[in-house]
């Protein structure tokens, strides 16, 4: 097998990696926004519940979550495909992290913003959607970019639950070809060429936001 063949073999898995990432984002983004906002708005018992859900997804070891949901859900009579389990677990784990950025972004806004909205006679939801979230989302966009990177990297785990992503393909090749240096270097590089541009974009975004004179609406 030539180096080129190894590359080609690994790239066969890129579709799965991309699909799990995209599917995972479908869980991550709504969870982050919904629970981040909920944690910001709620108090007392409600807040405790919201926090418990976030902490469950965020503070658990993601590899164990994946196995638990993959092996244990059927025991409770719920069977989901490996795809759905992977996307859900990886997505909600990443979403748990991102929800903290959402909450922090909202909390960091000067309270004058909320008060100015109220003084204009806006309802609470209107203040949230028209004044607070647009500003907070800009501030937390670099964190969101990081979450995407974390998610892409976490998809390497799905090879452990039989999905044939890039990591799975690499291990497949490793079984027929004893050339670990080439195979795993290629695999590392494959992730690097995907994640590094995203990281650079995140840095650019961060610099834009930090730049003096940058406006929230300018991005």
């Amino acid at each position: 097998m030539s180096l080129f063949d190894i590359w080609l073999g690994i790239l066969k898995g890129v579709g799965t990696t991309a699909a799990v990432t995209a599917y995972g984002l479908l869980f991550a983004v709504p969870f982050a926004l919904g629970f981040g906002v909920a944690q910001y708005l709620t108090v007392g018992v409600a807040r405790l519940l919201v926090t418990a859900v976030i902490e469950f997804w965020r503070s658990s070891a993601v590899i164990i979550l994946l196995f638990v949901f993959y092996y244990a859900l059927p025991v409770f009579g719920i069977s989901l495909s490996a795809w759905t389990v992977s996307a859900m677990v990886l997505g909600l784990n990443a979403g748990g992290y991102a929800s903290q950025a959402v909450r922090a972004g909202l909390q960091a806004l000067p309270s004058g913003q909320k008060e100015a909205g109220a003084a204009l006679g806006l309802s609470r939801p209107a203040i949230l959607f028209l004044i607070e979230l647009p500003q907070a989302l800009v501030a937390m966009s670099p964190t969101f970019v990081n979450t995407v990177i974390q998610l892409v990297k976490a998809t390497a785990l799905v090879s452990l639950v039989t999905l044939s992503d890039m990591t799975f393909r690499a291990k497949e090749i490793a079984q027929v070809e004893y050339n670990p240096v080439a195979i795993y270097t290629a695999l590392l590089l494959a992730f690097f060429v995907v994640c590094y541009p995203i990281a650079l974009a995140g840095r650019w975004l961060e610099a834009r936001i930090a730049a003096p004179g940058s406006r929230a609406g300018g991005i």
Partner: protein
Amino acid sequence: MGFDPAFALSCVPTILSAIGTTLLVAAVSCFGAATIGFLFEMARRIGGIAGMASGFAIDFIRSTPVLIWLYFLYFVLPFYGIRLGSMTVGIMGLSLYYSGYLAEVFKAGIDAIPKGQPEAARALSLSRRDTVIYVIAPQMMRNIAAPLGNYFVSILKATPYLAVLAVPDMLGRAFDIASETYRYAEPLVVAGLIFLALALLISYGVKRLERRLLAGGTR
């Protein structure tokens, strides 16, 4: 066949017996990651070729999954005739991977020290060495204590990855039980809960530490 709480309970001692392994692996890896990360950051600060190489290494590590690093070391080292125990390889992998993150922690911890501090030290004629030992290092330590604690939790949550390399940690034990009894749900759930509890406990400790450092004002 539902979830059997009694069986789950019976799994606890076996799984918990590996908690020492888990904590040891996490502590040693955290120490290794901090050491390598510190060296990376120092090299980056020196600049020139070493600085660029180090900066690139940090970016590369952060753009690739920890699982692949573990595979890489596990399969590539023997290829070059280096035979190490799987726990050693696992610790090396976690140390290397998290060094990329800890380098950034050191960077932030040093950057947060106002420029006036080394200047005041120079105005007092302190040598460079004394400036580092008595002025920079103590302030850096205070700045990194909390983020370092948080990364310790991250590393702790990454230790079950080592089960993939057949290290008998808590997840490894859970799989041992599973393969003996053909019951996956109970041991995995137990392992997951233990990790969650550990993570929450240590995070809570870190938060208290952080609050104490902040409450001390500029102390």
